[in-house]
Structures are given as C-alpha cells and as structure tokens.
C-alpha cells in the first residue's frame, strides 16, 4: 500500500497538466471539478497511507520510498525519495483534506473569474509543491517543495496582476514582495543545508538522528538559527513577517489555503522535522520561542486595530504561527503540530467565511461598512462564529485545547514566555470577537451593501460546514492527558514530557478565564458599548497610532534596507559601472592606442582591415616566437 505514494504526487500533477494543456477548452465548472477531483484523489491516497502506517508496529512507522538518485557528486548524495511517517502523513492529510475543501469552495467563489484555468492550475501546482515539501525524506527535496510553494504563492497573490487598489497598491507588487522576502529566508535555508551536509555528512532526515552526535553545540546553534531564518520567512515571523499582510491581495481561497492553513506552517513543520538538530541547541530553541511569542503578541496587537476583515485574519495568522513556532522552539513538537492542525481548520474556515462575505458584498471587507449581516447570511455567520470561537480559545472548541497545550508548556518552562502568551491569547479573544460583532451584529452601517448581501451557494457553504465541524471537534485528536497525537508522533519526536498535574490544571483554568474575559471585553466594547471598557482602554490609548502604523516595521524596512540598496545599485548602474570601471579601461585603451582614433577608423569602414591586421599580427608574432625560440 505504501508503494502507492507516487499517486499522491501524480494526481495533482495530472490535474495541473490537464488544466494547463486542455483547460482552454473546458468550462469553469469542469476545470474546477477536475482540479478538485485531483486533490480529492490525493486525499484518499493520504488516508490509505495513514491506515497502512497505523497498521504497522510503532517502531516500524518510518518508511522511505526511493524513486531515483537525484544528485550525486563525490560524497554528496541526495535521493529523490519520500518519507512516510506519522508526521508526514498528518501533514499530507491536512494539506489534501483542507486543500480539497478549498478547491470545491473556489468553484463557487471564482465563478465569474475569466482566468479560472490559471487559478486552478496554480492551486493544483501548489498542492503538488506542498506535498513535496512535507513528504521529502531530505532537506534538498523539502527545499524543492519549499520554493515551489513560494512560487505558487507568488503567482496566486499576484493572481489579479493587473489590479490595484488603495489598500494593496498593485497586487503584483504584493506577490513580488512575498517572493523576495521569502528568499531572504531561503538564504538561511541554503546555508543551513550546506552546513548540515558539511558537518553532519548527510541531508537525509532519517539519518540525522544517528549522525548528529559529534556535532559541536555551537555549530548546531548556527545551523538552527539559519533554519530559524528560513522559518521566519515562510511562517511569517519577526523579522520577515511583513509579506503576509500584503499577501491578502490574493483571492480569498488562496489566503485560506496557502496563507493560513498550509504553506505558512511549513516553518513549523520544518523545525519539527529537523528536531534532531534542535535537541543539540537549547539556545537556538529558546531564541525561537522568544521570536515566536513576541511575534504572537505584536501581530495580535496589530490585529486589534485593523479594519479589513482579511487583514485582521492575516495578523491573526501571524500571531497563531508565533504560538506554533514558540512551541516547536521549546521542543513541544506535539503541541506545535496539534495547533498547526486545528489552526488549519479554523483559520481556513474563518477565511472562507470572510470570502463568503466578500462574495456577498462585492468585495467589501471593511468592517466599518458592514454590520448586521447575520440576518442575511446565517450560514456564513454561524460558521464564522464557530471559527472565531475556536480561534479565541473558547473551551471545548479545538483551538482551546491546542492553544492551551502550548501555554501550559510555557507555564512550565518559562513564566515570562507564558505571560506574553497569556496577553496574546487575551488579545486574540478580543479581536476575533470584535470581528464577529462588528461584521455580523448590530445595525448595518452601509445600507446599500446590506441590501445586496446574500448567502453564498451551497458549493461554498458545504465546505464551510465541514470545516466548522472540524474546528469544533478536532480537539479530540490530542485531548489533555490522553494525547493521542503526541503518542502517534513518538516515532518522530520521541517520548512526550510529563507535565505536573497542578500546572496542567492551572493552565487550563487560566486559559478558560482569559478566553471568556476576552470575549466579554469585545462584547462590551463593540456590541453593547459599555463605559467600563473605555476606562479600561484609556491607559493604552497612546498605543493606537503605533498599532495603526503596524509598529512602523514596514517603514523601517523601507528606510534601512530597501532604499539604501536601491540607492547603491542605482549609483552602480548610473555612475560606477559606466564611468569608473568602463572609464578606467577605456582610459587605458586610450593611452595605448587612442580609442577615439580607433572608433573613427571604424566609422570610416576601415575596421575589418584593421581587425584582421591585428589578428595577422598576432599570428605572425606567435610564429616568430616559435621559430626563433
């Protein structure tokens, strides 16, 4: 059964190729269903892989299928091979499962899009690349997927490449920014891979564990920090998160699939996958945890004041990814993956529901122009509410368990991290219910929009319901004390560390309090407008402009990096190259021969003779030397 893993790749590849070459003769519906069927097929393959793997004894649940020797130079050897193990199968299930639902949703959402072939081609290509990323058994293969999803992301963010508006500027620029910022992360990835091979001698994940023992801790730290740079690019963490908010220029299904559920979790996956290296460097792990938590707080604070629904969700994604990255940095791989999975469900749900709103309001997502939509769009409202509840960590929803798992670990390891996490969790609850209340409750703020709003077709709402069910129920895969997922992952990440019962209970209690308190604040502030919230808000009012300017991070980049680089290259191109370098050489030429003279002769038509005579001269000199010598 495990041998059929090639189908996992062949199906989306086939879908993409069919659409690429035959799509022009197919209607939007046909193209959409072909693409969806390809991903559904891949999902079924993933399910069968999961069953096959579960049928094996725990210690045998790591199967490598090698296709061919990819690259061999001397001792450097990298196969084209996939690794089927508990981690990769979970990732494949999420990617193809959520991917399939979003493909189906897109059939409705992209109904009026004239370039629908491109859209579904890119989507299938993305699934293929993402599967390559999570299934490869070595760094370099993973990197193929890593860059492949980056390309898909670039193509889909800039899908409306000829469009611009006030929020995003040219959409194409947003795609370009995403790709280039990610390349900074790739710089770290490339160097990390080079260092791993040069010091450990292999790039194959399953061989890392046995080979890393003689790695010096300092080297391990450098490698892990380089990997971290890669992760901050793909998973949108400080300092490279700045591309993700702009990435919302892409069609909403893309935001759901790539920029919430799957691609952006690649950094988290990568850290879990390379845990053998991270075991060697507590420093790197702690750095990672701090970066994750600070990002979580920073992004949550920005989400609080955003007025565009998708931007709120984008900063929320950055924030939640921060939680996952922090968990991975602390070595809590089970908790990180748990949150990755539940987040994939509820954030995809939130984006798709937001897309449903957009579908109804002709693209308007400014929450200050919405309001009261729950009457017009009951399904969208209910599913969005479920997603928001999961995001806010309302008890018994999936997000509650997974976020709590991370917070408890932090409580155990590092109280400072826990406090940051607790504040971020509070802000999360506030901003998610702000979105719910302002969008769906209260009075319509723009009557025209409200009048035209309508519920989306069932091809869109059915995926919403399925994701809603998953967002509610996905907590069962790793309930506290039961820890099914942690046990399932043991072949990859080792034994789960026991957490004292007292801490566990304390953590759960605090999580409940934080979530409920957050929702109450949001309700008082945005729905019932109670005066005590204003008083509570007073001391923080001075932060508002800073938050609205997103902590000025984009401006800092522009000022300290982009402008100087552009200035330097402009000077190189306009002055240094033509004047200094070229001038110097021309000057030398002038001294020897008089370039001007030459050029004049050339223009008289004498140059062929001139050139030939030089050549003849050379030959003559050569032979002269040869004979005389």
């Amino acid at each position, binding site marked *: 059964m495990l041998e059929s893993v090639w189908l996992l790749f062949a199906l989306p590849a086939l879908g993409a190729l069919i659409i690429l070459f035959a799509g022009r003769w197919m209607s939007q519906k046909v193209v959409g269903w072909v693409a969806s069927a390809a991903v559904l097929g891949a999902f079924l393959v993933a399910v069968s892989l999961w069953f096959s793997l579960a049928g094996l004894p725990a210690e045998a649940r790591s199967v490598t299928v090698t296709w*061919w020797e*990819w*690259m*061999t*130079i*001397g001792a*450097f050897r990298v196969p084209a091979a996939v690794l089927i193990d508990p981690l990769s199968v979970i990732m494949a299930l999420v990617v193809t499962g959520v991917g399939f639902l979003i493909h189906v949703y897109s059939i409705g959402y992209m109904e009026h899009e004239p370039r629908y072939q*491109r859209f579904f081609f890119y989507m299938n290509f993305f699934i293929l690349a993402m599967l390559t990323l999570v299934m490869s058994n070595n760094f*370099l293969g993973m*990197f*193929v997927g*890593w*860059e*492949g999803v980056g390309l898909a992301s*670039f193509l889909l963010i*800039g899908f409306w*490449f*000829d469009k611009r508006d006030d929020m995003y500027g*040219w959409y*194409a*620029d947003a795609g*370009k920014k995403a*790709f*280039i910022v990610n*390349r*900074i992360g*790739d*710089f770290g990835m*490339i*160097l990390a891979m*080079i*260092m791993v*091979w*040069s010091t450990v001698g292999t790039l194959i994940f399953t061989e890392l564990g046995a080979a890393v023992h003689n790695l010096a801790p300092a080297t391990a730290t450098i490698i892990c920090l380089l990997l971290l740079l890669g992760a901050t690019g793909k998973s949108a963490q400080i300092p490279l998160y700045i591309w993700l908010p702009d990435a919302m220029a892409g069609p909403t299904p893309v935001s759901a699939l790539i920029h919430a559920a799957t691609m952006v979790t690649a950094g988290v996956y990568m850290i879990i996958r390379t845990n053998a290296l991270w075991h060697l460097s507590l420093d790197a792990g702690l750095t990672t945890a701090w970066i994750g938590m600070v990002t979580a707080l920073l992004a949550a604070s920005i989400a609080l004041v955003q007025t565009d629904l998708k931007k709120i969700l984008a900063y929320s994604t950055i924030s939640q990814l921060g939680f996952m990255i922090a968990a991975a940095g602390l070595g809590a791989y089970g908790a990180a993956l748990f949150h990755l999975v539940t987040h994939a469900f509820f954030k995809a749900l939130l984006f798709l529901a937001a897309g449903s709103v957009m579908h109804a309001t002709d693209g308007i997502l400014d929450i200050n122009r919405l309001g009261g939509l729950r009457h017009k769009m009951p399904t969208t409202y209910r599913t969005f509410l479920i997603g928001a509840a999961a995001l806010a960590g309302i008890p018994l929803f999936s997000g509650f368990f997974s976020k709590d798992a991370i917070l408890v670990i932090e409580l155990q390891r590092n109280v400072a991290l826990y406090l940051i996490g607790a504040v971020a969790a509070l802000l999360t609850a506030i901003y998610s219910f702000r979105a719910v209340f302002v969008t769906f409750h209260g009075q319509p703020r723009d009557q025209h929009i409200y009048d035209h709003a309508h519920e989306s077709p069932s091809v869109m709402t059915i995926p919403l319901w399925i994701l809603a069910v998953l967002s509610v129920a996905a907590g069962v895969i790793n309930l506290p004390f039961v820890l099914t997922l942690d046990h399932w992952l043991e072949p990859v990440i080792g034994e789960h560390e026991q957490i004292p019962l007292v801490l566990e209970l304390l953590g759960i209690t605090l999580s409940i309090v934080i979530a409920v308190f957050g929702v109450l604040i949001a309700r008082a502030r945005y729905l019932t407008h109670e005066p005590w919230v204003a008083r509570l808000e007073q001391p923080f009012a001075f932060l508002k402009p800073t938050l609205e300017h997103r902590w000025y991070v984009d401006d800092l980049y522009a000022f300290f990096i982009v402008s100087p*680089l*552009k200035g*330097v*290259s402009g000077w*190189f*191109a306009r002055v240094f*190259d*033509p004047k200094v370098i070229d001038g110097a*050489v021309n000057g030398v*030429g002038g001294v020897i*021969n008089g*370039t001007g003279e*030459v*050029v004049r002769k*050339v223009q008289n038509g004498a*140059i*062929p003779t001139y*050139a030939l005579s*030089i*050549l003849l001269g*050379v030959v003559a*000199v*050569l032979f002269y*030397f*040869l004979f005389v*010598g």
Partner: protein
Amino acid sequence: MALSIPYLLTIIIFLPLLGAAVVMFAPGDRTKKWLALATTLVTFAVSLLLWTNWQQGEAGMQFVEDAVWFAPLGIRYALGVDGISLFLVLLTTLLMPIAVYFSILYVDKRIGPYMALMLLLETAMIGVFLALDLVLFFVFFEASLIPMYFLIGEWGGQNRVYAAVKFFLYTFAGSALMVVAILIVYFSTGTFDIVALQSTPMPVAVQTWAFLAFSLAFAVKTPLFPFHTWLPDAHVQAPTAGSIILAGVLLKMGTYGFLRLAMPIFPQAAQQFGPLLATLAIVGILYGALVALMQKDLKALVAYSSVAHLGYVMLGVIAMNAQGVSGSVLQMVNHGLSTGALFLLVGLLYERRHTRMLDDFGGLWASVPVYTGLFLVVAMSSAGLPGLNGFVGEFAIMLGAYNYMPIFAVLAAAGVILAAWYLLTAFRKMAQGEITNPANDKQHLKDLNLKELVMVVPLVILFFVIGLFPNLFFDKINPSVEAMLETRTVLLQQGAAAQMPSLELAEIVVTEAK
C-alpha cells in the same frame, strides 16, 4: 556500444566549416538559410553520438585524435573530449540550430555571409572545447573572435560598431597575454600538450606569471569583475542570435579555460591567487545583480545577470573540490540554456515591438500568456528555483565554496536573494500591471507561434530534465572532475615536497631558450 568512430571529433568541428563554405556559394537566400540550418542540425545529430557512445565511468579523454601538426615544436592536432567538455560541446551544437533558426525567421540582411560567419563561429567554439594542444586551443580561441566581431559590427543595433570594437579590443588584449603565457609554458616544459601539462610540475615563479596571463585572458572572456564592461555593450548591440551564442557558449570559453588550463596546470599559483579570484567572483555576483536591478533595457539586464551567474561558475572552479567543480561544469550548461532562452525570448519580443525598454511594456501576461508563462519559467530557471536546472548547479557550487572558504558561500547565497529581486522586477514591469500602451494589447501583439515555440520548448524541457535528473549529467562529469582533482593534488604535493628554488622568470626563459 560502438566505442570509437574514427575522426568523430574532427567531423563535429569541421562540419560547420564545410557548411559555411557551401552556404557562401549556394544560390539564393532561401537555400542559404536552410543549408545553414541543415548543417547545424546534422552537426547536432552527429554530436549526439558522443553521448550514445560514451564510455561510462571513464575519466580520461575519449574519442581521442592525435596527429603531428608542426613537428619541430611538437605542435599537434590533438583532440579529445571528457566529462568536463562533453556537455559544453553538446550545448554548442544544441544552441546553434536554435540561433540559426531564429535568424532564418528574422534576419534578412546579407544572409549568406551572416550564416557563414555563424557556422564559422560554431567550428571555432567546438574546437576550443575539444583541443588538447595549447596552440590548437589558442587558434580556435582566437578564431571565435572574428566571426562574433563581424556579427556584432555588421548585423547589430544602433551603436554596433562601438560595441564590436570594444568587444574585439578587450578580448584581444586578453589573447595577447595568452600568447605570452603559452610561450612561457612551452619554454618551461617543452610541451603544448594540455593533458600532459596537468601533471607536469613547474617552478612557482613560472606558474605565477603564466597563471596571471592566462587568468587575465580568461577573466576578460568570462567576464570576471572588473573586466565585464564590454559585455553589456556587446549584448545590447548584438543581433539576437549573436547574443544567444555569446552568452550561451562564448563566455564559457573563459570559465572553461580556467578549469582546463589555468587552475590545474599551475596549481600552486592557482592556490595562491584563489582567494583573490574568488573575491572578484563574489563581487561579480553581487555587483552584477545590483546593476541588473537598475537596468531599463531588458537585454542589458540579462547581460548583467550573466556577470552574476558566471561569478558562480568561477567560484566553483576556484573552490577546486568535487562539488564546486562538477557544479560549475553543469552550471556552465545551465547558464547557456537559461540565458540563451532569455535572450531568445527578449529577441522574440523585440521583433514584435522593436523595443526592449521595460517601461514600454506592462501587462503582457494578459495579452500573450504563452510567451509570458515561458518567460517566467526561464526567469525562474535563471533565478535558481529548485526543481529546475539552475538550482542544481548553484547549490553544488555553494557547497564547494563553503568547503573552500565558508564566507564565499555566505556571500554567494546572498546573491540568490538579489537574483530573484532583479528577475521579478523585470517580470513585474514587463508582464504584470495594466496594459497602458495599445501596442501591447491582444489585438496588436501576437503570442508565440509554432515556429517560435519549436525554439523555446526544447530548452524549457531541458530545464526540467537537468533539474530533476542531474545525475544523467553528473554521472559523466564526476569521473573526469575527480581525476583532474587527483592529478592536481599529486602535483601540489610534489611541488610542496620539491621546494623548488624560485627562479626569476627571466632566468628561466633565458636558460630554456638556449
């Protein structure tokens, strides 16, 4: 496995020359054009015999031919091909039909001499890669200069004469130094045999001077920073086919020269100057990329990107370890394919719009999707996207560079960021955004037709083949590279053991001359 086909290399080298003669005397432009194309196609087909009859795993020269040319000095007509030169020959024979076919479609002026020069160029280029005798190498090296000079000077753009002269003078200055170097080598060792020289020890002083002279000649050709300024001019002015060949093949004569001659024959000098050359290569990578970022002319942009790309190739060559060198050999081919394809696409656009200025375009993705899609694939190949060809070579080179001196790998990896930046900036300006100029819209701008696709698609297929199955190539490259590195190590050890007295160059020349 029919191993040796007699005179196969000679046939490959001189078929185009024969074709050139026939083309000159053939009646009618149409006949000339198709005869030229037929010649390059036949040459390509014949050159494929090298691949099919390759002795797998063999490190040394294959299909060797050896005849005395000028007995008193031991100058020989010696040809051979190994894993290092094989793919450069195939690259040449593959790009030629494409360049010629492009010219058939778009060149009308004085087609007879044009095609003859193209074919002459092919002979010279293949000769460079196959020559095993220094004098023979030099003859072919120089011979390649003349046709390219005329192609730029006669069939080029507005400022063609300036560019042609500049191209000529630059490379010619390099060649003059090479003559000197060849003579130094000969007087020091008494042989022109390139293979034998690789295991012939030479005094360090001789090595130093000869290495510097060779290096300068090859550095101009490559071009290595700061000897690169002829390249943008030459490219911008050259006709499209000339640019394809110039970037695709001609520049590799420089890096090939480093790899075949300068580095292995003068190992001690090479070791001594390695860090300097590597620094120049790195500067080329970063500087070329930054300058490319600011270019407004698409062709100039691609030209500067070549400076950056060839910097990678040089870096791998200088690293002189298996990963670096094998990566470089493959990267030479990769650059030839990617940049050849880029120039081809730019040429196709130019023939439609008669401009190459980025600001004149915008929104092409809406009007010519096939063209734009292919352009993106080519740009990604050039930017080193994994899964395509460029990445395999670049990664191997950076691996080699790291094990040479880590700092070079760090800086080279920074170049990867910039490559994406300038290519996507070009793509953004050209293909994305709105159509502002009616000349770019669907009614006025035609997408690629079948004839044009025939030229582009084979290259794109090769991107994927090399990117996904690089071992098809490394299998043949690695043994030769490893053998060369071993010979070099032995030579270095001998040199270190012998501790040769460092003679003054003049002394050696004088004593040898007597």
